[in-house]
């Protein structure tokens, strides 16, 4: 892993957008304002010294009652040329579950964002096909939300029940 200080580079460019940062043995994390995510992603993708060409994972966390903003969307980027990684996080409130899509920058974001919508109910603005990906259309609710009842049962799709 290279020693590039990715946090510093993001801070230099988007100082006011960075809410928090964290670095543990080269495992670098930056928490950003929700509105800046596309801008910052475009920067780390196009900047030659960062060259994040791979969106490895895009997921979400539900911090119900533990953080003022209920959700956090987490992005993991990797540079296959420079062999370094960065994690971006954006807090998302329950009232405003809408995040800008990364589909135009990374094709892999398309399905990841559908998965986050499916299981957490966070919508992505500008996504070309914002539909459920893992569960079926008849499913009500978003099961990885902490307030989804553990014993809640959905109607079976099929001839019986």
């Amino acid at each position, binding site marked *: 892993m290279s020693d590039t200080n990715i946090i510093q580079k993001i801070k230099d460019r988007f100082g006011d957008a960075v809410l928090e940062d964290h670095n543990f043995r080269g495992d670098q994390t930056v928490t950003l304002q929700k509105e800046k995510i596309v801008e910052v992603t475009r920067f780390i993708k196009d900047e030659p010294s960062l060259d994040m060409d791979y969106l490895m994972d895009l997921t979400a966390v539900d911090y119900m009652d533990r953080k003022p903003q209920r959700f956090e969307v987490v992005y993991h980027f990797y540079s296959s040329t420079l062999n370094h990684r960065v994690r971006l996080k954006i807090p998302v409130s329950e009232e405003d579950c809408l995040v800008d899509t990364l589909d135009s920058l990374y094709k892999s974001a398309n399905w990841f964002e559908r998965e986050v919508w499916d299981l957490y109910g966070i919508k992505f603005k500008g996504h070309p096909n914002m539909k459920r990906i893992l*569960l*079926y259309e008849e499913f009500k609710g978003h*099961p990885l939300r902490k307030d*989804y009842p*553990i*014993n*809640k*049962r*959905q109607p*079976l*799709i*099929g*001839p*019986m*029940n």
Partner: protein
Amino acid sequence: MGLMDEAVDNVETEINNLKLNAKEALDQLGAEFSGAVYDSILTTKLGKVVGWAQKNALWPATFGLACCAIEMMAMANSRWDAARFGAEVFRASPRQADLMIVSGRVSQKMAPVLKRIYNQMPEPKWVIAMGACSSCGGIFNNYAIVQGVDRVVPVDVYVPGCPPGPEALLYGVIKLQEKILKEAGSEKARQRVA
């Protein structure tokens, strides 16, 4: 004496007459072992013979869903050798199978697929729910997994375990064979094929 007993007696007399006639015919031919032939004729019900044949030629459909499927494959291997019980011919097509071993957790999305495969199997057919997950949902008490495959298809034998070993599954197959033989010739067995 009831009507049924009378009918049974009549049939037995008829069969004995047939056997004696056969013996006479053999005697006339001068066959050497006509007495032995007489002794070696067995009588039974057709339904029982059919059931006996069915129980010794169970053809499972290949329906591996999770880790249980590994144990199911082991059961078919030479070490446990399901062939001893006539249940080794795993069929990739449900049309050629009469036993469905549901080996693993069934997700809500898999349930209609499982139902369709079950419907594609010709009668008579049987289902073994292998392991805790397919029997009752197992550890997966959540939104994604069907809480027991008996909510989707009728189950004949439940094999407990997580996963059950090949010998446990083999025991389940033997239990199913006993069930088939016990049912053979009964109204229930007739309804299966009707």
